[in-house]
């Protein structure tokens, strides 16, 4: 009975993906969820300041997409990026330390929640101006082609970013010059409190690729295997043909836009949010793995306990890390010292 209703991409991915990778993805989803839940607590305790945007509900998008990358591939993200950073290889402790504004943070406490960077693992940042990072990712893809390398660049942004000029300018250049860049729209249906229907003249985001004769796909962003399947095709296209792709991942955020925004209110109803939570991407993926005999309930519980322990460890690491020194105020403004400016040792 299960076999008949299993979508083709699920069967394909379950058959072709190593078991360890399949279960690792489930663990990453749990880790991402527990990390973000802990962030909400830490925000309430004022250990995290500023703007803080949580990824709860959207985990399948980043985790499915990143599951097909090589370590030398690069990613750019907007400001809802804690989970992308961790999955790309940033240590959770160093991400939490960044959120705490501590010296051992991935950006040495200079960036915060919206600006997580780690050059070693190809985490090219966390960027705070909606869509402003899309040209940067296009430039990294340009550099890969210029240097005749076959690494690819993924850039994540929300559906609200597709109405800014930088999005269109980037897609035009990427298609014109054939750049290995993959544009992933995390369509969670709301740009802050404005629904896509109230912001976009067309609902179908992927259709915008037609304007640039670019390959595109619309994918269920609540389905981690669908994401993996789709991004795998795009990565192959980028690596072998230097061809860009626009992917629209339809997803939903279970939390407010940021920590200062309630889960539901003026722009969406409690009923809508509750109905969406029935499509929880972690539960759905667990269902597939359970049906395939790759995990059972005790296995899930063990993963969850492990994820919670890793988050606890991250908190301990962040708590133990010192604040930046006063000297750091003037460090790394310029690459060479002048006047009050100097370089950090980092």
């Amino acid at each position, binding site marked *: 009975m299960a076999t008949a209703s299993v979508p083709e991409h699920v069967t394909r991915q379950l058959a072709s993906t190593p078991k360890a990778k399949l279960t690792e993805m489930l663990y990453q989803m749990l880790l991402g969820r527990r990390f973000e839940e802990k962030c909400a607590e830490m925000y309430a305790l004022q250990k995290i300041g500023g703007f803080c945007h949580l990824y709860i509900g959207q985990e399948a998008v980043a985790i499915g997409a990143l599951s097909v990358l090589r370590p030398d591939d690069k990613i750019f993200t907007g400001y809802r990026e804690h989970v992308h950073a961790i999955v790309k290889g940033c240590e959770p402790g160093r991400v939490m330390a960044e959120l705490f504004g501590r010296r051992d943070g991935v950006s040495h406490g200079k960036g915060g929640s919206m600006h997580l*960077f780690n*050059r070693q693992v190809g985490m090219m940042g966390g960027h705070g101006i909606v869509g402003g990072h899309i040209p940067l990712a296009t430039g990294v893809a340009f550099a890969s082609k210029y*240097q005749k390398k076959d690494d690819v660049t993924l850039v994540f942004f929300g559906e609200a970013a597709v109405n800014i000029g930088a999005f269109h*300018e*980037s897609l035009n250049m990427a298609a014109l010059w054939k750049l290995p860049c993959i544009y992933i729209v995390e369509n969670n249906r709301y740009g802050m409190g404005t629904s896509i229907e109230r912001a976009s003249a067309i609902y179908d985001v992927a259709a915008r690729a037609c304007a640039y004769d670019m390959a595109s796909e619309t994918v269920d962003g609540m389905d981690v295997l669908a994401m993996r399947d789709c991004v795998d095709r795009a990565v192959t296209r980028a690596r072998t043909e230097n061809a860009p792709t626009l992917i629209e991942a339809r997803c939903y955020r279970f939390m407010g836009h940021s920590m200062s925004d309630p889960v539901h209110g003026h722009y969406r109803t409690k009923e809508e949010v509750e109905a969406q939570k029935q499509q929880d991407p972690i539960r759905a993926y667990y269902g597939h793995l359970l049906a395939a005999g790759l995990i059972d309930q005790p296995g899930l519980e063990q993963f969850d306990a492990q994820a919670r322990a890793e988050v606890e460890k991250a908190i301990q690491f962040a708590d133990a890390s010192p604040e930046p020194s006063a000297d750091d105020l003037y460090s790394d403004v310029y690459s060479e010292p002048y006047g009050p400016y100097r370089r950090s040792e980092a």
Partner: protein
Amino acid sequence: MPVITYRDALNQALREELRRDPNVFLMGEEVGVYQGAYKVSKGLLQEFGEQRIIDTPITEEGFAGVGVGAAMVGLRPIIEMMTWNFSLLAMDQIINGAAKLLYMSGGQYKIPMVVRGPGGAAHQLAAQHSQSLESWYAHVPGLKVVAPATPYDAKGLLKSAIRDDDPVIFFEGETLYGSKGEVPEGEYLVPIGVADIKRPGTDVTIVAWSKMVSVAIKAAETLAADGISCEVVDPRTLRPFDEAPIIESVRKTNRCVIVEEGWPYAGIGSQISYQIQQAAFGELDAPVTRVTGADVPMPYAKNLEHLAMPSPARVVAAVRDVLYLD
């Protein structure tokens, strides 16, 4: 020593640096097939090919961002703005991207990028094509801002800018491109952040950069006929700013006139006069005075445009004013 144009000096700098480092590339509107809107990139496509001399669509924000991204992974882009007026479309990439990435990544991403092109007024180009935006960019920590006045400085500073590991905003001048000066053959650099005395003098210090250096020198020549000796100091770089030679000059002359093509309000001259009064308040015999562009959008009519621009006559009047001569 060979005498060449400012345009050819820039062309030599580009050519030498493109030959020196394969990571250097030039990108912008009309830089390749058209040979540059102002012919600064003449012949470069033929020598370096379309991989390195890249014609772009009209997409300033897009290609400025491509430059920042390419610089993040170690290339050394030279981004040409056909004029600096068009850079306003690219402000997000330059200010939120290029200027901040090293800092907000905790020192991980250097941005060795040059953005260059002509700034300021030319001849009757009206309000949208005549702006001097130096103070906009010099305001921003993380950027370096260079504005050379002579062919010699243009070549040496552009080479330094291309080798610099930080984003450099490089102001040329449409009406400077045809100006001539001595440029030695062979390799030399002019360091970023070092001022130059363009004309020594004893009675009044005139601070001027880019196109305004020639305005200041013409004024100094006129004043010399009346026995007034002006020292013209060209900071050459507006950030980092080489304060010491200006302060030293003011300590000698006790008077200062700053000539700036841009608008007066929150202009570079305001900053310089602040620094002078901080460092040499007790040694000033007159308030620091500015000669600036008129505080209006640039008009088209020839007579009005002339009135809007700093001129040697206005500088002469300002110098006489600080000497209490009239």
